[in-house]
C-alpha cells in the first residue's frame, strides 16, 4: 500500500514539473503579485500575474520549496494562462476540494488531477496549496501582499 501511495504522490508529471518548472521566471510587467510562505517548512514563492481586463494574459512564479509545492505551482501557471478570473476562481475551488478529499469531477481539473495523491498525505496538503493561496491573494489585490499557509 505504502509504495503505491508514494507513486501516487510522486507521479511522473509531478517529478517532471519539479525538475523543470514551467513559467519559473520574474515578470517585470506584472500588474498583480503576491508572496506566499509556509513558515513550517520554509517554502517561499512569488506569484506574478499580468491581467488584461479579466483575462490572465500571463502568469509566472519564483521561489523554492519541495517537489510538491514546486510542481503544484508550475502546473497551476500552465493551467491558468488565458483563463478569465472567474474560471481561475472555479479552478482554485476545485483544487482545494481535491486536496481535502471532497468528491469532485476530476475531468474538470485536467492535468491538475495528478495532485490528487496529496490527499493521502495530510501533512503535505499545505505544500500543494501554497501556490494557489498565493495566486488567490494576487488576484484579489493590485498591490504586493503576503500570505502564509500556517
Amino acid at each position: 500500500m505504502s509504495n503505491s501511495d508514494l507513486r501516487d504522490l510522486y507521479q511522473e508529471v509531478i517529478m517532471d514539473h519539479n525538475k523543470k518548472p514551467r513559467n519559473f521566471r520574474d515578470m517585470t510587467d506584472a500588474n498583480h503579485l503576491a508572496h506566499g510562505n509556509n513558515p513550517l517548512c520554509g517554502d517561499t514563492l512569488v506569484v506574478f500575474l499580468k491581467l488584461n481586463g479579466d483575462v490572465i494574459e500571463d502568469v509566472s512564479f519564483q521561489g523554492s520549496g519541495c517537489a510538491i509545492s514546486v510542481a503544484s505551482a508550475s502546473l497551476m501557471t500552465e493551467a491558468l494562462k488565458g483563463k478569465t478570473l472567474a474560471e481561475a476562481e472555479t479552478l482554485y475551488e476545485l483544487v482545494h476540494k481535491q486536496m481535502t478529499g471532497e468528491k469532485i469531477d476530476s475531468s474538470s481539473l485536467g492535468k491538475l488531477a495528478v495532485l490528487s495523491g496529496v490527499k493521502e498525505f495530510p501533512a503535505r496538503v499545505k505544500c500543494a496549496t501554497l501556490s494557489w493561496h498565493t495566486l488567490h491573494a494576487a488576484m484579489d489585490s493590485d498591490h504586493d501582499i503576503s500570505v502564509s499557509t500556517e
Partner: protein
Amino acid sequence: MSVLDLAAIRQDFPILHQQINGHPLVYLDNAATSQKPNQVIDAVANYYRQDNANVHRGVHRLSQRATDAYEGARDKIRDFVNAQSDKEIIFVRGATEAVNLVAQSFVRPQLQAGDEILISHMEHHANIVPWQMLCEQTGAKLNVIPMTKVGELDLSTLDELLTSKTKIMAIGHVSNALGTINPIKDMIARAHAKNIPVLVDGAQAVPHMIVDVQDLDCDFYVFSGHKMFAPTGIGALYGKQTLLEAMSPWQGGGDMILSVSFAHTEYNELPYKFEAGTPNISGAIGLGAAIDYMNNLGIANLAAHEHALLIAATEKVTALPGVRIIGTAAQKASVLSFMIEGVHPHDVGTIFDQQGLAIRTGHHCAQPVMQFFGIPATARASFAFYNTFDEIDALVGGIKKVQELFA
C-alpha cells in the same frame, strides 16, 4: 560492541514496538523528543494511582507522599548535574521557560540601553528570541558569536565580543541542528575572566553526556525533561545560589510566598520563590524516574553507544553519492543533519515515513543556522541509546529509496 543489552533496553520502551506503513518503526527523531521507558510511564501513572495530592500544603498522608516524591526528584536532578544544593534546582516547563526566567528575572533588572547580550550563530530559537525580546524592551544590543563552515563556533573574536557592556553570554552546549558540542568550559572561563555570567542551554546535552555544573562553573544551566526520556512540560533551571537569591521572582502566586497581606507579600525561600502555582508534580516525578533509568544503565555507557551509532551513520551516509552532511564539527553528539542532492527535505521526510522511518525535516527552530548554510531546511536523524546499528542501515536504505524515486 556495547556493554548495553539493547534488546532488553528496547523492551522498556513500548512505543518502539509498532509498525508504521507496514514497516517496523525506526525512531530517529530523538533531538525533537525522546521516547519514554515503562519505568517513567509507570512512575507517572503510579503517582496518580496512589499518591496524587498537592505538594507543600496538607498534613495528610497523600500530600506528604506527593511532596516527598516531588522533592525527591529535585534531589535526583541536583545529583544528576552535580549542583551544590537542591536550592539551586528550579522546576520549570522546559528549557525555553528557564531561558525566559533568567532573561526577565536576572538580566532585565540590570540591563540598560546600549548594554549587550552575547549568543551564538547556532542557537535554537529558544536561546535567541527571549534575548531579542529583552533587547526590544530595554534598548540593549544582541551580539552573535560567528560560526565556521563545518559548524563549529569561531572563537577567534570571542574576547572582543565579551565587552564591558556584556551582561550575559547565553550558549548552547550541543547544537540541535548540527550536533556540535561547543567548548563551553573554556568559553565560560573566558567570560568569567571579564566577570560576565553565562547561561548554558543544555537541552541537547543532558540526554547524551555527563554534565557537571560545578566543573563547568556555569552560572545557569537549563534543560527539558522530554528530551531525556521524561514527560513533556517539565524541565529544570540550575542557577548558582547567590545569583538566584538576589533575583526577583519570575511569576507571582501560591507556593512562592511566605506571607501575603494587601500591604506586603514576603517571598518564599529558594527554590520555591520561582515556583508559583501548583507545579507539574507528575512530570517532576517522571523526570526523576528518567534520571534513575539513565543512571542504572550508566550515562557513560549510553554516551559510548550513541557515539558509535553516530560514527557508523556518518561513515555510511558520507559514502553515499549525492548526500551532503550539514555540520561536520570534530566534536558532535547524536545528530546527523543531511541534504540529498536535488531533493527537498520535506519530500525526504514523506518518503521516509512511508518506510517507518521517523526523522525531522525543516529548520529545526534554528533558522539562522539554515541561513548560514544557504538552505531552507535539512533532514535530521538524531539518535538515542535505544537505537540500533540495524536502524542505521534502515536510514541508509531510506536515503537510497529517495534517490531511486527522484532519479
